[in-house]
């Protein structure tokens, strides 16, 4: 009985192992594409942002802090972010859908320095890229966790669970064979005794 149970369990484990392996490979393929894109995008964004921040800090230094704060207190531009989740190999990955409206320049031009315009334009231009970067990076992060988990499962099945199952099955069938032989020998001995 136990032998039959173990055999069917082994079959399930092996099938699970195969499926998980496929999942891991699929995730890996997806992941590599994403991570490459993330790296390139990050480099681009970092360059732009450093430039933008520098421009902004210089511009802000031209004015008093209160003036800057006041100028930017009531933003006229609205950003909307819609979030969908996409299912990649059972990992829930966010998909950002981002839209903006209005002009970023929401202040009096007379009281502010022109550097402010420059830096705001840089920010506005790179915001879409930043959103995209956020999406890709976060996807990569979530997928990395999932890949790690899946890989552990695959390894556990491959190196621990399946071999142990095989060993048990072998042990039981050996034992059963042994029992059969000893029963047979017993019968033969009995027959011998009876005939002599």
């Amino acid at each position, binding site marked *: 009985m136990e032998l039959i149970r173990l055999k069917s369990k082994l079959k399930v484990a092996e099938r699970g192992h195969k499926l998980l392996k496929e999942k891991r490979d699929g995730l*890996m393929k997806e*992941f590599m594409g994403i*991570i*490459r894109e*993330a*790296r390139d995008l*990050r480099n681009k*964004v*970092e360059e732009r*942002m*450093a430039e*933008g*921040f*520098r421009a*902004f*800090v210089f511009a*802000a230094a031209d004015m008093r*802090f209160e003036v*800057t704060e006041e100028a*930017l*207190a009531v*933003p*006229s*531009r*609205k*950003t*909307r*972010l*819609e*979030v969908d*989740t996409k299912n990649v190999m059972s990992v829930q990955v*966010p998909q*950002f859908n981002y839209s*903006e409206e209005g002009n*970023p*320049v*929401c*202040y009096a031009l007379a009281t502010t320095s022109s550097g*402010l315009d420059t*830096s*705001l334009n840089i*920010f*506005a231009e790179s*915001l879409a890229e*930043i*959103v995209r*970067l*956020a*999406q890709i*990076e*976060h996807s*990569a*992060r*979530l*997928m*990395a*966790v999932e*890949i*790690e988990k899946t*890989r552990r499962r695959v390894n556990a099945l491959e190196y621990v669970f399946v071999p142990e199952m095989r060993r048990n099955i072998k042990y039981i069938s050996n034992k059963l064979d042994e029992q059969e032989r000893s029963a047979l020998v017993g019968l033969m001995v009995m027959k011998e005794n009876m005939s002599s």
Partner: protein
Amino acid sequence: MEYSIAIIGSPTAILGFKALGVTAFPVASAEEGRAAVEKIRSGKYGILLITEDWAEELSQEINELKSGTLPAVTVLPSQSGSTGAGEKELRSIVERAVGSDILFSNE
């Protein structure tokens, strides 16, 4: 569902984003930073942007946020330029998934 974008950083750096409709959380101390993170955790924010200097300061809080589906945390370089923290983060993600650094090793 509609979400908004949040940004954490020093006041002088992130005010510009406010004009773009991003919710700005100017922080000057670690205490304020923690409060901001707390607010973001409970609010409807899809993306959290944080400048590198503050990401380091608040790393513990940020790491908790990172494991969830939302918000997506992204590190931006601060006004003093990029320190490579963002790239380091990517590298650690790769290492975690693949087991070794295969992307940046040849650079």
